[in-house]
């Protein structure tokens, strides 16, 4: 048997598949639903300081390489969400990661402090939502000093290890990764969706109500792999790869680039909620067929000459 377990900041995962933020995990029970379907960890939908409705439908637009989404960070606000995270922490067979956002730098600290009371083993800091620029301006992850400042504020407001979630559409992701690592983040996840648009040619109108959104799915996988590869060269913190992971070999590719785990979101549309079990099995088969005894031996091996 091969060992596909992994760990992020001393939190052990029985397998390297993680439910990505913004997908399914609206409630505590939704997170448990994904965990029971085999996710090695689950990330909640991003939690903000107050209730937000998000955008009108359509919030997702399908295209041949994946989806463009602009759900718009709907959430019931951190006070109403505490019990959802508590429910997930209590009932999920795998670790729960609370994703947080704020409209201002200070709000990240407030949400981090509040949600810590629900005791998620990890917190992911969403610095990079690309579809709320009308409300919040450009994502903080596009600017190294802004991203670093938020990480510093969040670290000052929680003892729980934090993951900085980065955006791909920057001139040099290494610079951003170094800035957030120096500011004290315990891990980095990459990438968030990258800005995109789908226009319905019959009506000549953008499909998404928000017009622009973030691209996810197989189309962005090579972008994500390169970002993970670059971040691995730049910093020493654990990396979680996100973007287009649909099959076991995609997860392996992320791990070879330097990730210790891979998040899955859009893949649920292609392979069902059982995708976590399927990808885990495929990862195991790959390792076995290629003579590896454990997943950890594969992390970052694409960097060897």
């Amino acid at each position, binding site marked *: 048997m091969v060992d596909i377990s992994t760990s992020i900041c001393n939190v052990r995962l029985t397998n390297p598949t993680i439910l990505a933020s913004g997908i*399914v995990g609206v409630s505590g029970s939704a997170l448990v639903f994904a965990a029971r379907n085999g996710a090695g960890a689950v990330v909640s939908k991003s939690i903000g300081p107050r209730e937000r409705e*998000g955008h*009108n439908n359509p919030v997702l637009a399908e295209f041949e390489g994946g989806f463009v989404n602009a*759900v718009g960070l709907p959430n019931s606000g951190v006070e109403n969400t505490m019990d959802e995270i508590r429910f997930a922490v209590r009932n999920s067979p795998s670790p729960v990661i609370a994703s947080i956002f704020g409209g201002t730098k200070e709000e990240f600290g407030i949400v981090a402090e509040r949600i810590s009371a629900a005791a998620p083993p990890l917190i992911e800091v969403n610095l990079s939502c690309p579809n709320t620029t009308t409300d919040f301006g450009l994502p903080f992850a596009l600017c190294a000093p802004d991203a670093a400042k938020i990480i510093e504020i969040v670290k000052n407001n929680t003892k729980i290890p934090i993951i900085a979630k980065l955006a791909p559409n920057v001139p040099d992701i290494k610079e951003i990764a170094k800035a957030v690592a120096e500011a004290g983040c315990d891990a980095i996840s990459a990438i968030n969706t990258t800005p995109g648009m789908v226009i319905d040619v019959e009506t000549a*109108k953008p499909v998404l109500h928000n017009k622009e959104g973030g691209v996810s799915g197989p189309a962005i996988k090579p972008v994500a792999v390169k970002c993970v590869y670059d971040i691995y060269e730049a910093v020493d913190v654990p990396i979680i790869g996100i973007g287009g992971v649909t099959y076991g070999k995609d997860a392996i590719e992320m791990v070879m680039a330097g990730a210790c785990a891979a998040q899955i979101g859009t893949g649920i549309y292609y392979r069902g909620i059982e995708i976590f079990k399927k990808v885990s099995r495929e990862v195991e088969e790959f390792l076995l067929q290629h003579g590896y005894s454990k997943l950890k031996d594969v992390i970052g091996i694409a960097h060897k000459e």
Partner: protein
Amino acid sequence: MAKITKVINEAEGIKSVFLEKRIDAKPGQFVMVWIPRMDEKPFAIGYMENDSFGLTVAAVGPFSNKFCSMQPGDAVGIRGPYGTSYNLGNCKKVVMVGGGYGSASLALLAQDARKKGIDVIFIAGSRTKTRVIYEDRIKKITGKLIITTDDGSYGIKGRVTDAFEDILKKEKINKVFACGPEMMLKKVADICTAKKVDCEISIERWLKCAYGLCGHCCMDPLGIRACIEGPVINAKLAEQLTEFGNYHRVKSSRKEKIHV
């Protein structure tokens, strides 16, 4: 985009909009209707014809009012069908309980049931006489239709669930299908559970993506999605949902008590 071929008045404030598109759907499934720059909403399929299908819509909010006011030749975006469908199995005699425009998906199911030679007792409840829909259509399909109105202005006075309970006392029924307001569904499910009669209900939740991805329609405490694992679920499963007949989530995902 699909063109509207005709719009018919079903009752006061309720219309059926027919769309020029061939759709391979099973009774209980729904489509997403897109009005560009406005919104996109789910509707259960109420009519299926060779090259078109119809949606029965109550004008209750800005979107449904706009949709109901559209004319033949206008077009809307359509994607789907999505979700689970009703399962007639090997039943000999079934009851269908429709509340308001909830009768839409059940009328299609009644057509399928009659084709299979299954006896159908259809009970349709409305608030008042002017809101009764599908009377002639269902009578043509099933031969018999029991109508109830809350105010007694037409048919039997009272709740559709009372008429349903009377039927269960008198007849040997293999399975029950229900679609309508959630408190009605809860009552039907409770009655069927108590009498050990198999039952399927169509549950409604705030749908956003309908691709099974956004998670907005996940139901407590199992986390199952109304758009993928539903909308049609067995009453046994519904009874495991603590939010069934209790609360739903609004656009932000905040919980809100269900009253009707």
